[in-house]
């Protein structure tokens, strides 16, 4: 079943890429949209066909080079299916949001989008460290082009190099660790490596470089510089993918290749990790207060949220893990929604500077409603998935160390401060003449509602029925806690 699913998606990707290349530029949007929609429905079909709450892992080999004895070990378990669903859910919205936005090189843009979706699919499928590394790094290539070609300002080249440079440089160690593991154990298969008991020194050494590779992607505190740059320069679909999926790769890596594998390293580096995460929480939300660009504010809030997810991971109990997992998913909905909204605002007024906006709830009521919902979700208000996620994470952290829960009050208050400040600055206040004189004050169109409503609905629905997500993953998390 899993192999059939994989083959189906591969053939689908191949066919749609061929069609994309052969057909006219005008049809490329439609092909990309059809591809993402078919992808979405096939993954949903797959999800309901296989009962993942009971199935631990469904995997298979693909032999690539017979000479080097290298196998591509692919598989789907309850962790990866959730991320595959999340990704396939988000990509149609990405295509929709780039529908009118991309005006040149349309064909190559959608080529990048399709390739990126397939690469992310392969990342989530990989049960082999080497191939995980390959696809993990490969996801940078389409992202690099999306930012560097379809970005908005001249700084976009710098931003794309920030993205590339940070990830590549910090994951060099990861690559050598993989080679080291291969030289010792003769394989890089993670299901095998999970059964190996590493010595303490090995764990500390390997764990540190694994941490570096994933922490850059998360991003944690000192490695986060690329994120605001990349977000600001990326076009709206690029931002949505970046916040919604690429940051989750770091989280995914931690859960898949760190938590169950290096328990001693987690124990040893815990003070450092927790310090960086707490700093990231407070620092990210504090810096978000001082930004003048809406996208930068939201980017810094992403730093804060993913740091909180990291705290949940290192608390190393079931509540923390489930909480961080829900944060990762809730953050996908919320930040994607916020970036989509900012893009809509940018399409109308061609600026992202907060000071130029005021009183938008008088002329864009629907926009203000959606913006308000995503803003209150961003500071973990009840009625959004983030609330359940934050409570569970804090419970997990509290079981480990209650003082940290108490320190995080600064994060909570600052986070609500910048979120509400952003909302009040943009949507409340007296209406500026400039905003009306441009004659661009039409409210959200139907297409924009189609982008936002699924995010809004899922975030609201999953707040009241979080068990739908938790039941799938619970056994997986119970198996990796040591």
């Amino acid at each position, binding site marked *: 079943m899993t192999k059939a699913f994989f083959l189906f998606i591969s053939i689908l990707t191949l066919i749609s890429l061929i069609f994309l290349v052969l057909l006219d530029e005008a049809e490329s949007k439609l092909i990309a949209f059809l591809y993402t929609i078919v992808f979405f429905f096939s993954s949903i079909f797959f999800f309901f066909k296989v009962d993942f709450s009971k199935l631990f892992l469904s995997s298979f080999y693909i032999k690539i080079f017979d000479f080097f004895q290298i196998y591509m070990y692919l598989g789907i378990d309850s962790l990866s299916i959730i991320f595959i669903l999340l990704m396939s859910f988000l990509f149609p919205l990405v295509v929709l949001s780039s529908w009118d936005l991309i005006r040149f090189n349309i064909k190559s843009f959608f080529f990048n989008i399709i390739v990126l979706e397939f690469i992310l699919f392969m990342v989530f499928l990989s049960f082999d460290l080497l191939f995980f590394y390959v696809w993990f790094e490969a996801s940078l290539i389409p992202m690099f082009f999306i930012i560097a070609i379809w970005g908005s300002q001249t700084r976009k080249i710098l931003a794309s190099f920030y993205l590339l*440079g940070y990830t590549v440089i910090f994951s060099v160690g990861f690559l050598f660790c993989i080679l080291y593991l291969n030289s010792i154990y003769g394989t890089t298969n993670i299901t095998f490596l999970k059964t190996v008991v590493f010595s303490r020194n090995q764990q500390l050494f390997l764990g540190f470089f694994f941490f570096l590779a994933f922490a850059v992607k998360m991003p944690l505190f*000192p490695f986060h510089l690329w994120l605001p740059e990349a977000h600001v320069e990326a076009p709206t679909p690029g931002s949505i993918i970046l916040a919604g999926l690429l940051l989750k790769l770091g989280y995914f890596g931690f859960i898949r290749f760190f938590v169950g594998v290096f328990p001693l390293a987690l124990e040893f580096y815990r003070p450092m990790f927790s310090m960086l995460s707490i700093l990231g929480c407070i620092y990210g939300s504090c810096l978000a207060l001082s930004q003048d660009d809406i996208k930068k504010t939201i980017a810094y809030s992403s730093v804060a949220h993913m740091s909180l997810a990291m705290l949940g991971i290192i608390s190393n109990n079931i509540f923390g893990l489930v909480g961080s997992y829900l944060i990762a998913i809730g953050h996908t909905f919320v930040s994607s929604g916020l970036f989509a909204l900012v893009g809509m605002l940018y399409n109308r007024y061609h600026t992202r500077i907060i000071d130029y906006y005021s009183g938008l709830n008088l002329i864009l009521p629907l926009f203000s409603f959606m913006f308000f919902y995503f803003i209150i979700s961003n500071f973990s208000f009840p009625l959004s998935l983030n609330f359940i996620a934050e409570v569970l994470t804090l*419970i997990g952290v509290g079981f480990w160390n209650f003082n940290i829960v108490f320190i995080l009050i600064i994060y909570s*208050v600052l986070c609500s401060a910048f979120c509400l400040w952003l909302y009040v600055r943009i949507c409340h206040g007296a209406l500026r003449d400039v905003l009306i004189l441009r004659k661009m004050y039409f409210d959200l169109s139907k297409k924009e509602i189609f982008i936002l409503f699924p995010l809004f609905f899922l975030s609201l629905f999953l707040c009241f029925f979080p068990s739908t997500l938790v039941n799938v993953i619970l056994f997986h998390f119970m198996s990796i806690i040591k």
Partner: protein
Amino acid sequence: MLFGIYYILLSSFVINFFFGHYFGKKGVFFLTSFFTTLSFLIVLYTFITRINFVVPELISGGVWVSVLNFSVKWNFLFDSLSIIMLLVILGISSLVHVYSIYYMYHDPYCSKFMCYLTAFTLFMVILVTSSNFLMLFLGWEGVGLCSFLLISFWSTRVQANKAALKAMLINRVGDYFLICGFILIFIVFKSVDFYVIFSKVHVYIYKIVLSSKFFTLTVIDVICFFLMVGAITKSAQLGLHGWLPDAMEAPTPVSALIHAATMVTAGVFLIIRCSYLFEFSPLCLKFLTYIGAFSIIVFGCIGLAQYDIKKIIAYSTCSQLGYMILACGLSGYNFALFHLFNHAGFKALLFLSAGSIIHTMNNEQDIRRLNAINSITPLTSVCFTIGSLSLIGIPFFSGFYSKDSIISLSSFYTNNFFIYISTLFGVILTTAYSFRLFYYLFIKENFNSSFNNRNFLKNYDFNYFNFIPLIILTFLSVASGYLGKTLFIGIGTNFFFGSIFSLNKNIFYIEFIDFKLKILPLLFIVLTIVFIFFYYKTYKKYYIDYNTFLLFNKRFFIDSLLNLFIAFIFHRNSFKIYFLFDKGLLEFFGPTGLSYVVDKIYEFFSEEIHNGDIGTYTKFSVFTLLSVMIFFLVVAI
């Protein structure tokens, strides 16, 4: 049937919020008022039919969150405490809905306003009927959100936005303490359900977390501390009160419903609900007593020197909430609830009649320009006066029954006489600011502003939607004390059996108090009234010192100090941190510095290229090479 109130309120909100524009203005007004009144009638019917038995009813609505032993169910708890709170909330809410028809009729966004009011009512109902802390928190945050939306309802006003932000942010502090509290409860008790926690409290009474020479902290103390900070934030007690007076920027029906009768009493409700926990934490009870006593005095003093009619009533609310908190601290939870019940009636009456005065006088709120209005709005003035008398505690008005019993209760607190003194002093202050207001509004004649300019709308307050709520509330503020006394605080009443708990040593019988002590508050009231009239008859510029007046008028500078030492620090330094770290250190030891180093290395090795840009791709490959070298260096070490 009782469960129907959720469906009624939710459907009222959803229908009117999403499809309100199909019904038009009158339709939305009618539907929201009708639905809220209907839910009130259901609760009233239940209360009347079930008043004789006190068995709590638990209505289950399925599972919400379930992760291992953290399982939270949608269980709604209807016991005597929540029924009383429901009566207050839905009663005042339906009256305010009706009043809003009068007050908000000409507002273009009135349908949005009504929807927010209904949503607020729904969240408040969830708060008081919750059977676990997570649901309580949902309601707690929800009312805060509705408060934010309603304060900034006239969103083009800068002051309204500032007040809304302030309210939300200060409340977030309290909310986070509440989260901390219930996380600690879950860690200790392994459950967040009220009944499970309350039945396991006695196991943890002696579990000490911190012990020193002066005091020992049990785990119950710590939990109660977190809950208490949450409660005093919501109830606007001293130190975290700054949001409530500023929240008077909201439309007046909102002030009546949210910032006087219901939402601010949520803190008191939380303490009463957790009486099983607070009873075993003498330290927190003591703290509550003192914070209540200080709040009574400080807010009374501030109320004396304000000139905004709504702010005076707001500070009076803070002061009266101080009485409730103090009663909770003395373990007189039913006294606090009784005062809450009466206070909701007369404070809503005061706000609503103040609102109709403001509306009639063309949105004038300064009492120096609201003189002799009893000739313009006679019936409203009568209602206002009755509300004031009830607030002061003139015998046999409703405020008398509850406040007098709290004062009598505090006379039993013999550890420190300050508590009793402060409650008595609170009576003096209440009388003083009420009669000051009374003097300005009804007695003082200043023909310059209000009559000669004709800046009032003649007979504007003559409207049935204005008078029906006012007259009902007037009746309540006269009679609710008399009607409820036996039920709430009568000797041997077992109405709250099971929902409120106090240790035997904390129960006092106020009926056996000495007559001299009993008459003392009345004596003070009479003396203060005489003094106030004497003061204004022989009016000189400042009887009290100007600096004292300034201190009271500027609210003891508490808000300014909090701004200076907390808010500004973060707001100003966040910018500095941004330049110091993100644009400074991290760039220097990160990409920019690395790029500079690579430039230098490249220059060193190649003599042809001087000071030229070497191109990003070259630089990038050198980066990667460098990082490989660093990696091997680290491994070698």
